[in-house]
């Protein structure tokens, strides 16, 4: 197991290098840069002056030079300074991460408490009204995009209840009530969307497992339904579900651009979107590396969790 983990960690290096190279080059291929974005709208700055600013920021240097400098600093933990705000990229990420973390875990929590019970009920009551309703919910969650649900929620609450979650980020340590008011609605929307896939996966794997011989044996031994479902069926059925949840969690931790923007939550997603719009190369690179590390580590943790869930799985 240890050798496997070390091998996976070593494999992270080329993955992260590839990701950094792709994002480094792609954002530079897109027209426009941070100087134009800063002064473009109302600028009367001469071209020479704009070139001077580009030189100061170092974005006029050849691509390979810029990448080498950035990569060397990155391995030392220095992701540079934001071209837009001048603040250290790492600091911006540290400031924004708590928001994204809270939103991600809350969304996944809500998704799980919706998806698993409904998925199990759907499977154990196959082709009954309960199953139909469960499947309808799953289809609804899959069909309705989160940006639509979020916009509708904001418009609906504002229009009919003159309500919007409190503005400005309130840390749970400062004011838990306001914090929950801010996070519950976006987390519920995200959670509902995420629950759809998990629910469908839970249902189908449960159906598969419930048809296995060992489950029939458990029934024939006279075990109660609860024992058969929860002790015997669910543990095996949940392995693919855990994979799905792990993938969803890693994506959520990368930031929810749309939800964070609509609910004015200052998380990593909104920071990433702003970085793209502002052509803030350094901040974007830092954010993408942050997201890439999270995805790779989350995948590793999911793989490791298989061994815990299913003792038959062994890594060598």
């Amino acid at each position, binding site marked *: 197991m240890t050798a496997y983990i070390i091998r996976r960690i070593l494999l992270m290096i080329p993955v992260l290098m590839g990701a950094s190279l792709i994002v480094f080059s792609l954002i530079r291929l*897109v*027209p*426009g840069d941070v100087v*134009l*974005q*800063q*002064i*473009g*709208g*109302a*600028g*009367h*700055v*001469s*071209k*020479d*002056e*704009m070139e001077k*600013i580009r030189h100061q920021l170092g974005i006029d240097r050849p691509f390979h030079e810029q990448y080498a400098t950035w990569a060397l600093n990155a391995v030392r933990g220095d992701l540079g300074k934001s071209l*837009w*705000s*001048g*603040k250290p990229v790492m600091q*911006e990420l540290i*400031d924004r991460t708590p928001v994204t973390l809270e939103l991600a875990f809350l969304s996944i929590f809500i998704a799980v408490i919706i998806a698993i019970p*409904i998925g199990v*009920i759907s499977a154990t009551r196959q082709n009954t*009204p*309960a199953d139909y*309703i*469960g499947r*309808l*919910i799953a289809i*609804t969650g899959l069909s309705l995009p989160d940006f639509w649900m979020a*916009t*509708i*929620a*904001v*418009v*609906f*609450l*504002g*229009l009919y209840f*003159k309500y*919007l979650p*409190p*503005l*400005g*980020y309130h840390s749970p340590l400062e004011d838990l009530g306001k914090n929950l008011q801010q996070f519950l609605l976006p987390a519920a929307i995200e959670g509902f969307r995420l629950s759809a896939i998990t629910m469908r996966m839970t249902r189908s794997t449960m159906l598969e497992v419930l048809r296995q011989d060992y489950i029939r044996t458990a029934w024939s031994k006279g075990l109660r339904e609860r024992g058969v479902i929860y002790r015997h069926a669910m543990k095996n059925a949940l392995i693919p579900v855990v994979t799905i949840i792990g993938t969803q969690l890693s994506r959520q931790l990368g930031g929810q651009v749309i939800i964070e*923007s*609509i*609910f*004015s939550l*200052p998380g990593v997603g*909104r*920071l990433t*979107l*702003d970085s793209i*719009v502002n*052509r803030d190369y350094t901040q974007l690179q830092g954010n993408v590396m942050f997201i890439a590390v999270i995805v790779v580590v989350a995948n590793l943790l999911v793989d490791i969790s298989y061994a815990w869930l299913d003792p038959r799985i062994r890594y060598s």
Partner: protein
Amino acid sequence: MTSKRILAGIVILGALVLTAACAAPGQEPTATPAAAKTPTASGPTAVPSGSPTATAIFGQIGSIDWLDKKFPYPPKPVLGKPVKGGTMHVDTTKWPPLDPVKIHGIWATFGAYDHLIEQDLDWRDPVIQSTVKMRPQLAESWDNPDPLTYVLHLVKGVKFQNIPPVNGRELTSEDVKFAIEVYQKGGYREAKVSPIAKIETPDKYTVKLTLKQPYAGFIEFFGSPVVAQIFAKEAYEAEGGLAKNVVGTGPYIAKEIKEGESFLMVRNPDYWQKDKDGVQLPYIDNIKGFVMSDISAQIAAFRSSQTDLTALVSLRQVQDVLKTNPDLFLYRVPSAIWGTLTMYYRLDKKPFNDVRVRQAISMAIDRDRQVKTLYDGDGDKMGPLPWVWTYPEWPRPYDKMGKYFQYNPTEAKKLLAEAGYPNGFKMTFQYAELGTGIVENGALMVQEDLRQIGITVDLKRLEAAAKEQLRAEGNWEDVLYDTYYVAGPGLDDMIWFTWHSTASKNGVMSPDRVNDPKIDQLLEKRKATPDAAEQKKLLLQLYDYLGEQQYRGIQTVYFRYEIQQPWLKNAASAPYNWFRGYGYYQQRASWLEGAPKR
């Protein structure tokens, strides 16, 4: 059974949400107009007695009866007695860097600084609606002993905010000299201080500016809100520079700035300026700002009273918000020219290098239809120069604009045939949508208009930054369909930087690189002419010449709508541009009366 009930509840809630989403907005609000109060000017801006009234200048604008009744244009100067205290809540869509040398600030930093001279931007003042008025700020007066010299006399006893690293010391002429010299070194405001050749400080409260060449409109140019916020040397030289050390002499102190998220400004207890009754400004204790990039969230925040004002971009949005907030106060602010839908041609290419083709295109555009369709009738047709300095009358005297602004497809076809294109030609519009739909819909309407005279238009939509790149480099295919940019709210911001050939070095203000010696000559002559009547004559000559040349396909513009809560008083907006924060009084002289606890 319980789970079934929960599921049923979710389905019902979903159905409710869907129903709400499908509820069609657009009906006219039926709320009765707010009762008019007796005008009592207060705060730093008093309406001068004997001034011509705005209604006399403009008459009634727009064609929307209910709107004109409920929110007459221009708004009445209803001010009342100022009340001190409270916290004003505002939204902002974007978070630019806070360093004023790099870029103009937003609300946050704007309140922290003062200027030497400022443009009076209170839209309620009828004089200001038709003329540009300059007023003293840190410079209480100024002399112009010869065409090249301006002597500014500073207000004595003005102190910087009492926070590190400046710690409340007095502002002197050396600070002004230092700040202008920093701006001259480069950055966002370099061009605005470029006419100055020398800065001297004969004493602690006097600044002598020597210009490079005579410039009759210098004070107006220099007093533009985008010029020279005065900062202290200590703040500039401290670690992090001005981006970190937001310290000026302004009415608000930056207490908490969470970049990209929110800011909190608190009243400067030592602020030097008082209103006409001797009450120290500002009236409001705190200003809290929140970054909200989503328009739905901004509107919902206003609806739920979490913000005190916000900007809207269409009459339909206004109607929609009026349903839930019938007591809101609305500013309908026409743009001087900023934001006008404009076709920038590749003037170096055929067929756009032929004036007849440009004239034909202009005559094929139905501007009235644009106003009716794109802006629901509450928009404005626009000539080649800003109206406030040229033809402030309303309705706009389009007969004076010249025949090429009139809709006449028959004449347009004739002109095209004369130019050698009897069957028209094909061309491409490149454009980026700004999130309002107006640019895209405008392009579609022009596409339809031009089809009538045989011109086929292909539309190519770009991402906003990609469009900026094209604008800066001037290398679009045929036509860049965009909005009109200006460098600020002063006349030269709007004409010098957009039409003089030397401005083309930049590219952003004059993307099509118009280079016509006659335009340059008229602009230069006007700049050097001290006589106001002569200046106006030259400006109208330029107006006529540009109308004939049709270098740019200038079309129509929408009104800017700013909605304010009924408890926010005297929050005047800027008349010549759309950026919130440029109307100084919003921060310095507005007050809250009966605002809810938030």
